[in-house]
């Protein structure tokens, strides 16, 4: 599954901040961890902030902290902020043909499975799985 860069950064930033909701990190700190430009990350953080998931100061040196509910927020909640909703993608050329329609149904199956997977994993579940020594982290 290919996610847009902004989506991956949104997931990284939300998860890094949710790891310790009491901690404040600047956009520059976060950008350094993920090796991306703080300008690019600042736009992503604004989107997360507008969704109520993080709260932050202004500018590259302003600090951000997680303000969402890590048990209730799922990976899909973050992905949906940056990607078109599954099933609501614009119709592609050729999809009105019989082959195009059949192919669209197969791609729709894949979208449904991907959405169910992303919707079933909370930030807390993913953070637990990322701990060294956890079964999911080592599998």
């Amino acid at each position, binding site marked *: 599954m290919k996610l847009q860069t902004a989506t991956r950064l949104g997931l990284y930033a939300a998860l890094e901040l949710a790891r310790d909701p009491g901690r404040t990190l600047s956009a520059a700190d976060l950008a350094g961890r993920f090796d991306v430009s703080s300008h690019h990350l600042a736009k992503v953080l604004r989107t997360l902030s507008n969704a109520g998931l993080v709260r932050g100061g202004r500018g590259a040196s302003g600090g951000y902290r997680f303000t969402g509910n890590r048990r209730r927020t*799922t990976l899909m909640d973050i992905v949906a902020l940056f990607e078109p909703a599954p099933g609501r993608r614009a119709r592609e050329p050729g999809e009105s043909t019989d082959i195009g329609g059949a192919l669209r149904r197969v791609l729709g199956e894949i979208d*449904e*499975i991907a959405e*169910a*997977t992303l*919707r*079933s*994993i*909370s930030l*807390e*579940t993913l953070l*637990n*799985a990322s701990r060294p020594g*956890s*079964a*999911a982290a080592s*599998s």
Partner: protein
Amino acid sequence: MLAIRPAEPADLPAITALDLKLTGEGKAVYWQTVLERYAGGPPERHFLVAETAKGQLAGFIAGEVRAFEFGQPAAGWVFAIEIDPKQRLKGVGSKLFEALLARFRAQGVTRVRTLVDRKDHLILSFFRAQGMVAGPSLQLDKDLS
């Protein structure tokens, strides 16, 4: 205080009532058959209930060890888990799941499996939080109408 114990025939009314509350479907005969097969049945079958200190049913789980299903080596299968909505977020499901896993481990299996409706985000999230991930099989359907 929560007690986990094997289900007994006397639990049938509470199990049927909880399932009706959660699914909106009355399936008394189905649960009676399941209880007859599992409660006091072969050692590879397990039907456990969680009971509150007041003796009320907080939830139940059913599963069994099956070998060579769908070409796979022996694994523990979870067939049903239901928790009273009033008892949710208290760890009842996790305790039932852990108790079932302990029984599976005692029988020597090292994998646990289940099937979940992919639109049932509540139960999917529960199993994910227990560390379950996508398995090696894909379930396929065909409309026969």
